[in-house]
């Protein structure tokens, strides 16, 4: 089943065209990694999928709902699409538990007791149950990012967007975050991941998209992209990063 269908997506900032013509489909349970040089439009594309960036033209359909249509309630859609940011963006004035339970309680998906029970259950899975009452600034970067993933999961999303989730982390903390993401992938969560972690893309993803200059230049299985890239730009990029 098709989870996300993007057709002719374009995004301009004034005169600058960041996304020129993006057409992709993501199937349910699929893990798609977006790789490419900085400025190629990867993050912008990801942010268009939950409309943190409003698309200039084209259409994005998530779960048969056209989210680029202004008539549809974007907030309802976002409840089912989790997002994890490079800078974590945890709420510093709330404890870990409050960070996780705020949205489910506010949006009336659960009452407080249910939300807390679910939050603790999720925190246990990422090994942070003992940190439930501390504030985000008291956690390491890797711990913060794991909490941020839990915060997104607490809304029971069926699609997760990751925007360079390990780029702001110290090297020794990258592994703990990637492990959580691998677990998610095993549970057949549909995931779109913008990443510079080529090892992760190769090991976990079902499909890799290489973006450059606002286009998806090449796509294929990780095997194809990493061992047998065809486009010269993909080849030159991979030569530099691998």
């Amino acid at each position: 089943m098709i989870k996300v269908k993007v057709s002719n997506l374009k995004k301009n900032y004034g005169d600058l065209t960041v996304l020129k013509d993006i057409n992709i489909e993501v199937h349910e349970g699929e893990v798609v990694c977006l790789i490419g040089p900085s400025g190629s439009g990867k993050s912008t594309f990801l942010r268009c999928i939950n409309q943190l960036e409003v698309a200039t033209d084209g259409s994005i359909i998530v779960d048969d709902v056209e989210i680029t249509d202004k008539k549809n309630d974007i907030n309802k859609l976002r409840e089912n699409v989790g997002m994890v940011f490079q800078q974590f963006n945890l709420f510093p004035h709330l404890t870990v538990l409050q960070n996780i339970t705020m949205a489910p309680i506010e949006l009336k998906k659960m009452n407080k007791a249910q939300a807390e029970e679910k939050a603790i259950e999720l925190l246990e899975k990422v090994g942070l149950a003992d940190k439930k009452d501390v504030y985000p600034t008291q956690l390491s970067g890797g711990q913060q990012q794991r909490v941020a993933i839990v915060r997104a999961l607490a809304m029971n999303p069926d699609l997760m967007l990751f925007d360079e989730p390990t780029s702001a982390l110290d090297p020794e903390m990258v592994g703990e975050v990637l492990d959580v993401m691998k677990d998610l992938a095993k549970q057949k969560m549909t995931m779109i991941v913008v990443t510079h972690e080529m090892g992760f893309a190769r090991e976990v993803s079902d499909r890799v998209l290489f973006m450059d200059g606002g286009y998806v230049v090449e796509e294929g299985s990780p095997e194809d992209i990493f061992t047998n890239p065809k486009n010269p730009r993909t080849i030159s990029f991979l030569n530099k990063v691998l």
Partner: protein
Amino acid sequence: MNFIDILKDYWPMLLEAAFMTIKLTIITLPFALILGLLACLCGMTKHFKFINVIYLNIVRGTPILVQVFFIYFGIPSVMKELFNMPFKFTAITAGVITLSLNAGAYLSEIFRSGIQAVNKGQMEAARSLGLPYHKAMTKVILPQAFRIVVPSVVNQFIITLKDTSIISVIGLTELTFQGKQIVATTYKAFYVWIMVGIIYFVIIYLLTKLSKFMERRLSNDKGKGK
């Protein structure tokens, strides 16, 4: 007549005047906060932004002295001329209106900068969870902005307290007005103005201490100061 003699003779008057200064400030504060918040919210909308711009420019572009004359003398005079209505503000009402309008304008700028100082990612994270704009604002942005603006808001209160001395020009018996009166009877300008200065200083010093205390409380509470 020296410092001590003046203090002995006039301390009840000075105390009463100091009380009036504090009263004027305290009545002004809630109005200024509400005005400031409303103006700030107007400034963040597309359609009502002009209200904020006009208000801010009028307050910033004219001296308080002119504003208080306009409100105390100007408005009643035009009411009489146009509608033949006998109408007059009391000095304290005119004072509260002037000071509230003034502080409100500056507070709206303080609030705006506080909201803008909250990291952009906070709004994005809140919206990405599905929270509508107003909920993201009240649950995520405003609590953080509040902590950022506390020192500036207290500072604005101190400025307002000092601005009350301007209200003396319309005959409100606050500290500065009383000082003038005492000088007029005793001719001891040096002693009297030193005394008045000390009273202002003490009140403001205590306010500053209170604000430092509040700042510490706010940052300790929420695990910010590790």
